[in-house]
């Protein structure tokens, strides 16, 4: 037994937290070989010495007696929800022998039969090892279960188009007025959680105003200077109402910004909505108001890269004759288009009073202080740039709907109308959009650049295809037909359809699901209705093996072999804070490349996923290809090519250990002196961020769209391809969403006609939990129980009284499709009376997660996995629904 007061070893080891995807730098205390405490690492730009409740609770993640410690084999051939797998402990050799045999069989049948499923919690592994292995094995099939389909297909894609960033967030350090649409940024959960909490607390202290639109009184609403209750799923309508009110009611917009930093002046041909293009260069044209003639968009006389550049004004409104065609700038079309979103019309949709919409638009527009500037110090001396201390921001709450894509664009449009994008005080790309790299190596490098049409294009990105330009729709090869749909990364409505195999047949997919490799996901609970996911999708695989920390509901239902994975405290991860998504705070603090290192050797027979993937690759005879896969991943993920000497040897003549691979990557990014040994001592490497990279808008020659001309083309191509396969026999697509101007579309929850289903329900993110895993941590579970609402169904007291429901009553929530979930009610005033709010991925039932079991409500069981509940533009799932509520026995 360790004597707590006289330990011999007492060391703090620098590494990176892994309880969520924020990647805070931490120091972990090890006393006589036991991890006893975790703190933030003050040297790490992400965290700066603080970490959140989840990171602090990590010792129980490492030592939980319910962790999987040995490889397990399912001995019960039956699969399904609630089936006892009858686990049998096996050796690693037996596990890997079986896995190799199944993978080799699949290789022979068709390697594309491998489907990689992963968790966003371990985002670093997904971006490197998972994708590297997929390339090596030759399969395009993967998904990150709830990541993406619930919270990113819309937001990440659209933020990628508009900011080359994974997300957007106010420049809290200088922002004075923000509009928060259903997201917890700066208030605990999610994005750069700790640093944003610090920044927003400082901002509150100096008088920053935050208006929060949310159906219930979330943490951010409770801290905001105004809470505006809104009907779930209608944020896009509200945003378009604000755009209309700004432009057409108050006449507030940043003409300078729109002229030179967006495609607002691009002339549009009325016949088909396409750009007017110059006959010689084929480039989009604008109307030069000084020379009174059309010019190509990048003609120097009409271009301003830096704020102090001089250029002719170009037309934003009016009608102009070009080559005999009467055409209008896209802004004129937008201005007309949004007129239907009058405050009164929007009130009917959103339940936000018309006067409130009009007032907030005015406040926002005035707070933008259009015309104001600030001088910042850049590498090229002092430069004047616009100062726009306002921002809108959003995330899961606003974007988890069947109108996801257009909602994201509409909310961000509010920023672009007043020029509040990627400049001082405004909405910034979260995580750092622009990276000039460490001076000595020039890596990691990510400076976006304009495409020939002038629009913003990424240099490096989180996954292989950049958000713009859109891919060409192609005949499908993937199990979810993804190749056909350039505006999404993956979808659920195909693979979770009861007609999945018929679909594969029709779309001429020559192979079938074969081996699923699961890395840390509990997709039975994190996607949607558990029965649909299990029966229609997961049970269709011949063989499933899973790297996992616990035997979750997923393993219980469908895994054939469970491999005991190392947790973040037991493994090396060479790149954690890059690609920078939620792993850097916005603003002027340094860049930091963080690694993870084992604080203790993997306990029991646990093994690190990364090491095992090397082992599996070797056994499958694809080790050289795996090295190539990893080499190939580096340039786009981590910004910049690998030097020849640091590349993994692809012919298989050299066997690289995982530590060697980590060492090569960090040396390649930061020079030989910053090798893995350097990182083991410090945990990270930091270098200064340039101010012109923080506020990059007026240093970059690119524009962003307010008119999405290219969606029209893409939609036409997709629908043509779809019709070639007579896809409508399976799904009736609304191709009209592929158009140039933003609109709001109702979700099924808004159009439900049966009066029995009279309540809207949705889920929110609790600060003590991330995804589904933390529910098993007893410290976090205890915190969640301390909160009056986390494990309950929040319900307004008057609504409950009218239904005869009392505080603490057990109730059923049943959706129109007959799916229902059970929970207990906590009555309150802080919720719009027609709504019911549920937190987190709760309501576990698996017997191997006893702490999590029976706590909270399994909201996702109400999420339907069909096209009707999917955004046709981005394939984001609909995370709200109509229910009836009644007492349970």
């Amino acid at each position: 037994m360790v004597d707590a007061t006289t330990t011999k070893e007492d060391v703090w080891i620098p590494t990176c937290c892994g309880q969520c995807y924020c990647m805070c730098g931490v120091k972990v205390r090890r006393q006589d070989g036991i991890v006893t405490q975790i703190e933030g690492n003050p040297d790490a730009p992400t965290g700066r010495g603080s970490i959140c409740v989840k990171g602090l609770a990590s010792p129980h993640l490492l030592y939980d007696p319910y962790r999987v410690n040995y490889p397990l084999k399912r001995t019960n051939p039956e699969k399904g929800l609630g089936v006892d797998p009858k686990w049998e402990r096996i050796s690693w050799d037996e596990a890997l022998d079986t896995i190799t045999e199944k993978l080799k069989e699949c290789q022979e049948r068709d390697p594309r039969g491998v489907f990689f499923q992963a968790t966003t919690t371990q985002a670093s592994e997904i971006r490197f090892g998972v994708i590297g292995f997929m390339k090596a094995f030759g399969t395009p099939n993967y998904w990150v279960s709830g990541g993406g389909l619930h919270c990113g297909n819309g937001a990440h894609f659209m933020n990628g188009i508009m900011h080359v960033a994974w997300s957007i967030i106010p420049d809290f350090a200088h922002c004075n007025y923000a509009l928060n649409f259903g997201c917890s940024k700066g208030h605990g959960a999610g994005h750069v959680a700790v640093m944003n909490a610090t920044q927003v607390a400082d901002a509150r202290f100096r008088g920053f105003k935050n208006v929060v639109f949310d159906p219930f009184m979330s943490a951010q609403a409770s801290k905001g200077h105004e809470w505006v209750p809104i009907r779930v799923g209608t944020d896009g309508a509200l945003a378009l109402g604000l755009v209309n009110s700004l432009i057409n009611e108050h006449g507030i917009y940043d003409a300078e910004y729109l002229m030179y930093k967006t495609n607002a002046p691009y002339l549009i041909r009325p016949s088909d909505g396409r750009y007017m293009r110059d006959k010689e260069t084929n480039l989009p044209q604008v109307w030069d108001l000084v020379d009174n003639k059309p010019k190509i968009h990048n003609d120097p006389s009409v271009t301003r890269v830096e704020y102090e550049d001089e250029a002719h004004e170009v037309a934003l409104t009016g009608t102009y004759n070009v080559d005999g065609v009467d055409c209008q700038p896209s802004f004129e079309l937008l201005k007309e288009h949004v007129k239907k979103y009058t405050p009164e019309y929007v009130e009917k949709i959103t339940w936000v009073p018309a006067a409130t919409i009009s007032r907030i638009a005015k406040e926002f527009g005035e707070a933008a202080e259009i015309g104001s500037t600030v001088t910042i110090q850049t590498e090229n001396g002092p430069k004047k740039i616009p100062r726009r201390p306002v921002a809108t921001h959003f995330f899961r709450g606003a974007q988890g709907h069947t109108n996801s894509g257009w909602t994201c664009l509409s909310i961000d449009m509010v920023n672009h109308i007043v020029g509040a994008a990627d400049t001082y005080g405004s909405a910034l790309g979260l995580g750092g959009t622009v990276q000039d790299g460490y001076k000595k190596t020039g890596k990691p490098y990510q400076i976006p650049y304009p495409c020939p049409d002038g629009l913003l294009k990424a240099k490096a990105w989180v996954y292989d295809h950049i958000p713009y330009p859109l891919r060409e729709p192609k005949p499908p090869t993937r199990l979810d037909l993804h190749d056909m749909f350039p505006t999404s990364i993956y979808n659920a409505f195909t693979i979770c359809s009861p007609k999945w195999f018929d679909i594969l047949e029709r779309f001429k997919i020559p192979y079938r699901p074969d081996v699923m490799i699961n890395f840390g996901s509990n997709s039975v609970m994190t996607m949607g209705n558990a029965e649909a996911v299990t029966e229609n999708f997961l049970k269709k695989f011949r063989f499933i093996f899973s790297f996992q920390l616990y035997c979750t509901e997923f393993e219980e239902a469908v895994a054939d072999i469970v491999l005991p994975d190392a947790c973040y405290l037991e493994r090396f991860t060479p790149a954690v804070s890059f690609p920078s998504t939620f792993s850097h705070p916005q603003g002027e603090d340094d860049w930091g490349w963080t690694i993870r290192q084992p604080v203790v050797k993997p306990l029991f027979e646990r093994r690190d996923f990364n090491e095992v993937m090397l082992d599996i690759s070797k056994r499958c005879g694809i080790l050289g290809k795996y090295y190539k896969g990893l080499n190939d991943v580096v340039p786009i993920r981590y910004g910049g090519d690998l030097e020849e000497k640091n590349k993994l040897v692809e012919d298989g003549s050299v066997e690289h250990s995982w530590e060697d691979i980590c060492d090569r990557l960090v040396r390649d990014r930061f020079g030989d002196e910053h090798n893995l040994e350097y990182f083991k001592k410090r945990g990270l490497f930091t270098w200064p961020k340039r101010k012109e990279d923080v506020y990059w808008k007026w240093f970059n020659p690119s524009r962003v769209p307010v008119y999405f001309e290219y969606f029209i083309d893409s939609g036409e191509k997709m629908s043509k391809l779809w019709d070639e396969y007579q896809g409508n026999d399976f799904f009736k697509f609304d191709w009209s969403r592929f158009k140039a101007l933003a609109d709001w579309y109702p979700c099924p929850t808004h159009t439900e006609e049966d009066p029995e289903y009279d309540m809207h329900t949705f889920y929110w993110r609790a600060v003590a939990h991330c995804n589904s895993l933390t529910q098993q941590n007893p410290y976090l579970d205890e915190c969640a129980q301390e909160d009056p609402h986390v494990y309950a169904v929040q319900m307004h007291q008057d609504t409950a009284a009218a239904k005869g429901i009392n505080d603490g009553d057990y109730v059923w929530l049943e959706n129109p499709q007959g799916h229902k979930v059970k929970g207990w009610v906590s009555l309150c005033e802080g919720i719009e009376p027609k709504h019911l709010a549920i937190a987190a991925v709760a309501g576990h039932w698996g017997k191997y997660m006893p702490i999590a079991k029976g706590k909270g409500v399994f909201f996702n069981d109400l999420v339907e996995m069909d096209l009707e509940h999917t955004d046709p533009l981005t394939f984001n799932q609909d995370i709200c629904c109509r229910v009836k509520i009644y007492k349970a026995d």
Partner: protein
Amino acid sequence: MPQYGMVIDLKRCYGCYACVMACKVKNHTPPEVFWARLLKGERGKFPNTMRQALPVLCMHCEEPSCLEVCPTGATQKLDNGIVIVDKDKCMGCKACIMACPYGARYSVEKWVSYFPEGLPLSDYEKFAKNYWEEKSGCGVATKCDFCLDLIEKDKLPACVEACPANARTFGDLDDLDSEASTLIRKCRGEVLNPELGNKPKVYYLAPR
């Protein structure tokens, strides 16, 4: 000798439980023991509703009710103002727990695991059990001591260090220039239930 106290800015605090957890992991407190705790409440009728988180801990009162009732001298007020329990002198009568108007004291009869009974204790829980039994003890009164061991090493209490919102300021309230004193003065810090006359040394700044 400094007189230690704390200021909690409710405008900064957003109820994230980092203080609660930092205290747990630093002091290895068993289930249901919260030397640092977060209370959450709601006021007003929809839509004019307010929700507020209130972090609480031992108030280290200048005139502690717990001290008055302690029959053995186990509860002591140190020269630096920190109220502590000497576990070796405590007889476990719980009079102090009843007397404390702030509900800041806890006692457990027996150390209990966070996991269901019948499992071997994990290495961490063995450590935590040992730590608790040696430092705090079972069958006796326990409470926040402002992380006295850390203060003695010129460090900050764990809850202060952990707070992402920098809502907590710890310092010498006798030093009028300390950050804590300045905040209390400038932002009109108030104590909870001043009418009780305990003169708490934990001050709160208004949420709005």
